[in-house]
């Protein structure tokens, strides 16, 4: 690579830089949405007696908010390792489907790089990369754009969960101010970007109803998996056999 002349190397490199920058810019509103959640998570972890250094370690290595809230809710001293790991796995089972959805769009990425990039896959970075594919009408994700989004979100998450753990006792209950709705707002805008008409979006409605009912009547974190799988099933049943 070092032997490459600057004139041939500069154009793909500047393209990558531009794409990373585009991803970083696009992630700004989502970063804003992350801040209150991260602070609440850090504060709750501190309240449950999780050592402060462990909070950014968990949020940096695990980087999946839903499972971290679950872990903190279940945290005791000493923690029930098996229970926490099992529940975290359940909350994150949707990643299996999300990774599967990315597979056909990432054929151009070498395996090692793809596996490393997937470490940073969260709901938002994944959905934004897919929305970007759709809006540009292409059939592969822009890896630098995705990484621009994902790295920003990852650093925001680590920094503000750590801050929450340190400041937690001072902050009190910041949930009451309405910041938690930011999460729903981000998801609704992402859904709008994926909208393909009422008929094709019927599986979403099935997912919504199934997830809501599971949330109301089944204790634990089953609702995400139940909603996603029921919607997928509806999509399979709706699709004609020889499309």
């Amino acid at each position, binding site marked *: 690579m070092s032997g490459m002349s600057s004139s041939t190397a500069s154009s793909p490199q500047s393209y990558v830089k531009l794409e990373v920058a585009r991803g970083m810019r696009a992630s700004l*509103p989502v970063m804003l949405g992350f801040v209150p959640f991260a602070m609440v998570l850090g504060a709750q972890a501190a309240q449950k007696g999780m*050592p402060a250094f*462990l909070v950014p370690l*968990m949020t940096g*290595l*695990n*980087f*999946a908010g839903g*499972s971290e809230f679950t872990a903190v809710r279940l945290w005791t001293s000493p*923690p029930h390792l098996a229970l*926490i*790991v099992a529940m975290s796995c359940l909350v994150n089972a*949707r*990643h*299996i489907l999300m*990774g*599967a*959805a*990315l*597979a*056909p769009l*990432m*054929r151009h990425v070498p395996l090692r790089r793809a*596996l490393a990039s*997937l470490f940073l*896959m969260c*709901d938002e970075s*994944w*959905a934004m990369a897919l929305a970007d594919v759709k809006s540009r009408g292409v059939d592969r994700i822009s890896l630098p754009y995705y990484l621009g989004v994902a790295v920003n979100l990852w650093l925001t998450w680590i920094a503000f969960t750590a801050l929450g753990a340190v400041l937690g006792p001072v902050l009190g209950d910041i949930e*009451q101010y*309405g910041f*938690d*709705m930011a999460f*729903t*707002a*981000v*998801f*609704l*805008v992402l*859904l709008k970007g*994926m909208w*393909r008409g009422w008929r094709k*979006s019927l*599986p979403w409605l099935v*997912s*919504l109803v199934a*997830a*809501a009912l599971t*949330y*109301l009547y089944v204790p634990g974190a089953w*609702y*995400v*998996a*139940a*909603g*996603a799988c029921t919607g*997928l099933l509806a999509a*399979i049943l709706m*699709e004609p056999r020889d*499309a």
Partner: protein
Amino acid sequence: MPDATLFLPLATVALMALTTYATRIVGFLVLRDRTLSPRMRAVMESLPGCVLISVIAPSFVADRPADLIALALTLLVAMRFSLLPTVILSIVATGALRYLVG
């Protein structure tokens, strides 16, 4: 030198991180070398929405009236505006409604 009381917390976090990473790569590895039929491709297209809407399903059945009104407002705003104004308006509306309606 980590003492014994830190072993379980560290092991819990390490195992969480490992299993979470596994969920991220498993679906990708399974589908990587396969060509999906047009039918399966059409099915996979509705999947992202199914996942996202399932994650936020609890806000649709919130037990506070203020939260339900705020959700309806957020939905309306999200249909018309981009990410940043939607996020800001939804936070402000939710905070105000919780204060006013309870």
